[in-house]
């Protein structure tokens, strides 16, 4: 738990950033910049590292930094780690990006006026998350100026301790104790943990802010190396929908359940509880053998989950969703998930 959060906060992606050749005015061109970008950070914040290296070769004009990956401008308000998970199906390390200081694509990207724009984007996301969780943004709005500055500074500097101290004032982390105790109880006291779970579930029923980046493909592919490239943002669906955890006696709410609840249009059988259970079992069976006769049952489903990636890892779909939320959430209290679905042609025709 604590370890998991530390790993998330310390996560960094190695970037090899090249200056676009249209903006090179010296010979030879400058060497690319190799930097470690925090996963929970944002790309425009890297300007303090890139500007000194590339400023000597830039043509005269006003600097407005933006990034592209294989021709695709990168949205700066999405955390760096999420962009990496989404666009690099097969992770490449270091991640090769191209940086621009001129010719900002205003049609595709929202304007970014430096650190302040990133900061306010973060604060707005925080308010949104607070509303999802508590039904209002009162706690965030009542935050003092110094707390805001401190919170944002901790995010900038990757200071987890300061963040946790300030964030505790927001009273947004109530799910943590339940599932932590639940896990430890499993290891120590099986019977007692069951009792605790029931008690906790009864006391707290909350909604979880989730941002799902859905990538749907039509073709069948065995390996992600052969997956088609995302060459424009129209192929990615951005779903911002809260998830409510429903406690059933004797069963926990898993990641798989959460995904299907978020995407009901892709999973019609979800309304039938019994069928759901059968689906899970069958999915596991499919994993074991590809020639299972259960494929006849698959024809009933519309879509198939190919990939679920959170914070750079692909957790097992049976993991409890509450644990995932408590440990893999971003600083603005949103859980960012990258999902790849395979949609059948029959379903498409339908």
């Amino acid at each position, binding site marked *: 738990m604590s*370890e*998991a959060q530390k*790993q*998330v906060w*310390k*996560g*960094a*992606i*190695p970037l090899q950033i090249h200056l676009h050749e249209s903006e090179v005015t010296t010979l030879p061109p400058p060497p690319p910049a*190799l*930097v*470690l970008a925090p996963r929970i950070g944002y790309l425009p914040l890297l300007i303090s590292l890139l500007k*000194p*290296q590339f400023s000597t070769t830039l043509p005269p004009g006003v600097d407005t930094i933006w990034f592209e990956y294989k021709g695709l401008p990168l949205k700066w308000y999405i955390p760096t780690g999420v962009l990496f998970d989404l666009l690099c199906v097969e*992770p490449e*390390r*270091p991640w090769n990006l191209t940086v621009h200081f001129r010719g900002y694509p205003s049609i595709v990207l929202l304007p970014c006026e430096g650190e302040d724009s990133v900061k306010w984007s973060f604060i707005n996301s925080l308010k949104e998350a607070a509303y999802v969780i508590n039904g209002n943004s009162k706690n965030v709005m009542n935050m003092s100026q110094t707390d805001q500055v401190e919170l944002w500074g901790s995010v900038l500097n990757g200071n987890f301790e300061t963040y946790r101290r300030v964030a505790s004032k927001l009273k947004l982390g109530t799910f943590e104790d339940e599932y932590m105790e639940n*896990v430890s109880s*499993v*290891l120590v006291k*099986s019977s007692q*943990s*069951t009792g605790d779970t029931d008690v906790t579930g009864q006391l707290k029923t909350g909604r979880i802010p989730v941002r799902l980046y859905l990538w749907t493909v039509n073709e069948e592919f065995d390996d992600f190396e052969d997956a088609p490239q995302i060459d424009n943002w129209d192929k990615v669906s951005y779903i911002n929908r809260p998830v409510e955890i429903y406690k059933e006696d*004797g*069963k*926990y709410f898993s990641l798989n359940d959460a995904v299907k609840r978020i995407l009901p249009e892709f999973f019609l059988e979800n309304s039938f509880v019994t069928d759901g259970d059968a689906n899970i079992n069958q999915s596991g069976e499919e994993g074991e053998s590809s020639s299972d006769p259960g494929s006849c049952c698959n024809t009933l489903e519309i879509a198939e989950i190919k990939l679920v990636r959170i*914070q*750079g*890892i*692909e*957790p*097992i779909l*049976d*993991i*409890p969703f509450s*644990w*995932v939320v408590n*440990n893999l959430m971003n600083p603005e209290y949103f859980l960012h998930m990258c999902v790849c679905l395979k949609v059948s042609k029959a379903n498409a025709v339908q």
Partner: protein
Amino acid sequence: MAKAGKSQEEIASEAIKHTLRALRKRHLLEEAAHAPAVLALSRPIVSQGSEWKEKEENLQVELQQCYKAQSRLSEQLVVEVAESRASKALLQEKENALADLQKELTELRDECSQLKVDLEEKIKSLEVIVSENSELKAQLEQMTIKANKAEAENKMLIDRWMLEKMKDAERLNEANALYEEMVEKLRASGLEQLARRQVDGIVRQSEEGAEFFLESNIPSICKYRLRAHEGGCASMLFEYNSSKLITGGQDRLVKMWDANTGSLSSTLQGCLGSVLDLTITHDNRSVIAASSSNNLYVWDVNSGRVRHTLTGHTDKVCAVDVSKISSRHVVSAAYDRTIKVWDLVKGYCTNTIIFHSNCNALSFSMDGQTIFSGHVDGNLRLWDIQSGKLLSEVAAHSLAVTSLSLSRNGNVVLTSGRDNLHNLFDVRSLEVCGTLKAMGNRVASNWSRSCISPDDNHVAAGSADGSVYIWSISKGDIVSTLKEHTSSVLCCRWSGIGKPLASADKNGIVCVWT
């Protein structure tokens, strides 16, 4: 149900463990794998940053130094701009001076070319003069040869002249001996005559001249026009009681003429200067001439030879007279302010009178004891011939006296002056007894000579206008004006026998009037 519960919990815990492992693996793949490389790369960047900071500091220091240097250079620039302005002004002045100098140079070049032209001309002149000089040297050599010859000839002539002088001395000694004998004889006869005169008195005197006495008539016609001398004729006289005329001129000659025929009878030579005055002894034997060569010359009329040369004056001798009664005493006046008395028998000066005013005219009194002298200061003075003392004087003219003439009876003396007046003085009382003047009559020179007629009744005087004026003493008026001369008339003489009248002018022309 319990089994199902356990299996679910196990599944969850396994899933969580799997997730944690996945996180660790991701960490190893991403941060752990690349952090050292990024750190290694960033170190140079950081050091570069520090280096850049150092460079920035250095550049700022350099910039400050550059600012200081710039300010210093600005000050220097201001100074140099001022200097440049001054230099420009100086350059302008130099250019002006240069233009002036070029102008001056042009002028000097023109002058130099002109001087070259002049130099060429002068070189040509020099060549001409050099050739002339060589010719003159040749002539000089010839002249030197001639001079040497002339000198030798002169020496020979001097020797011959000395011989001639010795001969003359011998003749003179003989003449002196003869003269002494004659003087003794004359003294004896003189005594006889003196005795006879003292007895008879006036009658003897009258008888002596009775045969020649004629009443003077006034001349009116120019009978002869004689070209007597080259140059002027300033001195002239008639022999005593005869018609023979004696003239002296600037050509150093004394000529004797027959006034009745107008012919030249003889010429007396030997005078070394212009003849300024003439006189003749009463026996008509010796002619005495005053000369501009400071000497007096005495000729023997019959032989035409010089008997005496009286030397002693230191300037030109302008007046001479000889006693009326004896041939022994001669008096002369010169422009050295002296009047000398000479003894012709002894041949030298016996007395010298020195006076501050030069004497222009002289005349002996009838008794031979007194001298009349007319001076430049206009005074008429009387001197004793023996003692040389001044007896008396009178202011005769306001300007210089030019002429003295004694009447035949010895009672009246005529003076002519440069004030154009002719005065008659009584010899005894020195009172003016008459003044003669005319409108056109002007005295021509300091030695213009006028005269009284033998009958003591007329005065003849020449004028600067070439006319001869004749006055009547009794009437005091002009009775005739004779016009023939074309230049100033310097001398008039009336013959002792009453006619003719002779006048001489500046051109050497002598007119004989009857």
